[in-house]
């Protein structure tokens, strides 16, 4: 049966406790197309998709699947209709194995799990995605990028006809992203309709056929991707022209502020590096390269096996994040939901948590006035979209949650900022804001260690880049010599040897 549209959504409205997240959205998806859904943080993209997948109920509107009116009340019903979704935030059971997570709802026939068969099936799905990892490992112990691949494998293995991917590449490096795109293209050949949400414009233009732009809960434009260029799309998203993506680096690079000497840990060994005042040092590496583990160890999040850390020339024995913070080190962790935020607590509590003494009296009584002052300023500076900072952090959109994590550490006087994917899931406009902030921080003499999977970002913002692979530093490039090709060559070179 040939229908023009796999999905049509008409006049969809949704409010959360008085906040209008969707104000009458129309959206349609054809079979065999990859359809980009783009827009600022808090525009309503995830909310729209959660309505399609049955996770949220809409207040008003109609949905047609295959031209037939559909009532999607529950995730189960959505699945029956052929909707598969990878949510922006992970929905995995940490204690279960990778294989169990992928086939959580199809573990075996008649209530009996045939483990060998289950592992084989899981391995096959992942291998089709170009991934080889022991599927018996519990999900809790793998990095976010692997988790993301598990989520994707889970959605793909359900044979969905309508596949929603909500910012799947935010934590992936170019290699994995390419593998994902290959998988998306073959699904497209098979007539599956793919909805692809991303804040990375280059990806949208390279893989998508059509686009819908949202802003403040409304659709502001859309059509075939060929009819748009990047600037035009960005303007539709943020309502103004964006002059430069990467503001020029002007901070003067000074003396050494952080030095690692032959650091050994569980996932890395013999790591040495030097970070200077006013410098942004990029750390680039593939999934599982050990980059995140290095960052956490320096901050005191995980134990070190050996090696020395020097802050401002003096050896620092950092055994806990508390000690790391006292030494003037900050860590913006890779996983905001689990490591960055207390989701159930108010936004403002999250922001002031790192430096709560600053807004309280000597006896430990929090001053509401001082707290509000500090919070309001940060919220304004980072354009966090919220109506009331007393609401729990869980009510924020993904990108806005990320901004809160950054705000937490701006509120301290840290001199060494370790940022693990700082712009993960942040929209283009706010990305520029964060880059400006980084420039501001370095101009004041801070040093920034930025881990990123986005080559553009590394090239655009870093004064130097270290390429990390298999738990060790494989090479270094100064700003003048940084090109996509040369960076990737260092990674691949590491693999070849």
């Amino acid at each position, binding site marked *: 049966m040939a229908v023009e549209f796999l999905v049509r959504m008409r006049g969809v409205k949704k409010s959360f*406790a*008085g*906040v209008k997240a969707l104000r009458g959205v129309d959206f349609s998806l054809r079979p065999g197309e990859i359809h980009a859904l783009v827009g600022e943080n808090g525009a309503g993209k995830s909310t729209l998709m959660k309505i399609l997948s049955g996770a949220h109920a809409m207040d008003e509107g109609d949905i047609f699947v295959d031209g037939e009116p559909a009532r999607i009340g529950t995730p189960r019903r959505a699945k029956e209709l052929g909707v598969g979704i990878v949510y922006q935030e992970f929905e995995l059971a940490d204690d279960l194995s990778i294989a169990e997570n992928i086939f959580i709802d199809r573990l075996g026939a008649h209530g009996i799990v045939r483990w060998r068969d289950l592992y084989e099936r899981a391995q096959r799905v992942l291998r089709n995605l170009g991934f080889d990892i022991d599927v018996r490992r519990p999900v809790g112990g793998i990095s976010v990028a692997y988790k993301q691949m598990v989520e994707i494998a889970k959605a793909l293995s359900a044979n969905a006809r309508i596949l929603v991917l909500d910012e799947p590449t935010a934590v992936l490096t170019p290699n994995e992203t390419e593998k994902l795109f290959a998988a998306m293209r073959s699904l497209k050949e098979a007539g599956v309709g793919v909805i692809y949400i991303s804040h990375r414009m280059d990806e949208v233009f390279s893989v998508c056929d059509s686009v819908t732009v949202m802003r403040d809960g409304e659709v502001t434009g859309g059509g075939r991707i060929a009819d748009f260029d990047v600037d035009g799309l960005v303007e539709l998203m943020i309502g103004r022209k964006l002059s430069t993506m990467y503001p020029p680096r002007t901070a003067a690079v000074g003396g050494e502020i952080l030095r690692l000497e032959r650091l050994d840990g569980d996932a890395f060994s013999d790591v040495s590096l030097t970070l200077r005042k006013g410098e942004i040092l990029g750390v680039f590496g593939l999934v599982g390269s050990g980059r995140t583990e290095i960052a956490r160890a320096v*901050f005191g*999040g995980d134990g070190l096996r050996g090696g020395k850390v020097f802050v401002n020339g003096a050896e620092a024995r950092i055994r*806990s*994040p*508390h000690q*790391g*913070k*006292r030494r003037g080190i900050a*860590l913006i*962790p890779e996983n905001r939901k*689990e*490591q*960055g*935020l*207390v*989701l*159930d*607590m108010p936004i403002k*509590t999250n922001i002031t*948590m*790192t430096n*709560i*003494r600053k807004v*309280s009296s000597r006896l*430990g*009584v*929090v001053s509401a006035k001082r707290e509000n002052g500090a919070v309001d300023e940060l919220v304004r500076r980072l354009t966090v979209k919220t*109506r*009331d900072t*007393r*609401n729990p952090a869980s009510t924020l959109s993904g990108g806005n949650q990320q901004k809160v994590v950054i705000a*937490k550490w701006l509120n*301290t006087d840290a001199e060494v900022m370790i940022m693990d994917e700082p712009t993960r899931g942040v929209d283009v406009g706010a990305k520029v804001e964060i880059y400006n902030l980084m420039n501001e921080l370095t101009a004041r003499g801070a040093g920034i260690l930025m881990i990123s999977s986005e080559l553009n970002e590394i090239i655009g913002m870093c004064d130097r880049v270290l390429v990390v692979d298999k738990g060790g530093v494989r090479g270094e490039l100064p700003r003048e010599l940084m090109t996509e090709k040369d960076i990737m060559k260092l990674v691949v070179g590491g693999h070849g040897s």
Partner: protein
Amino acid sequence: MSDAALAGRSRLALVRESLPVAVLAILIVASSFLNRNFLTGQNIFNLLRQNSGTIIVSFGMLLVILTGGIDLSVGSVAAFSSVLFATLLDERQNDAMALPPAFGLTLLCSLGFGALVGYLVAYRKMASFVVTLASMTAARGGAYMISHAKTIPITNETVNAFNKSSLFRVPYSVILAGAVFLVVAFALSRTVYGRLVKAIGSNETAVRLSGIRTDFYVMSVYMVSAALCTLGGIIESRTGVGDARVCQGLELDAIAACVIGGASLSGGRGTAVNTLMGVLILGLIGNIMVLMRIPPYPQQVIKGVIIIVAVLLQGQNKAK
């Protein structure tokens, strides 16, 4: 609260938060129908006085539960304090202490006890259920050892006066419970300490990665709980004796009070007001059942059912 804030917070959350207050109000009205004499000031004070020990102990329990832990040892520590205090004061012995050092030493003992338990839970990462299960047995055993399983009369006049007299008709023990309530309520809503305790229960990893010594805070709640058990245990000795058998099952009442008050056993959720309501609801139901001449064993069954219903109500609210 401003309109924006009201709109911003979900209405269901507000309903959930005020549910225990509403239930208590309904119970009070219901009980006044059962017995017209019930709603006298004297009776209300009696209710408060009967439960002042439980109230005090429940606030320690609340702090522990907020961090996501549980303290099964509260009843035993209260009993231990009760006999230790009485023994130290025992005027039948030559080396009987004066009141202040006796109280100080008792308090110090339970603080040490709480510190040990807290250390095992926070720094050695042992499950609080297991650690306090063990310390529950140990403390009760210690209480029997000190007292040789006998009651120890308290002859100290100040103590007995404290337990008997009142200020403007409010018994001292009730004033003490009220003070503890105010301090805990203030700590939870306004202080760094209370805020971090709650945050740790919601997401310990995120709090730790904010550069906060989570282990220290976790340990401290067990110390606070033990200290409050000392107060509770001494108040429970109002009959004028130190007794190793007092406060049997107090841990269950305290946990039940927190849960009826909407605290979540996985941590991060619960308020002082609602915990107070929880204690009073339990106490009032007990009184009503006595008024209705329900025998003790069925009383226990009914209490159990009420706890389940309370949790069910909150579970439904949470799922939405």
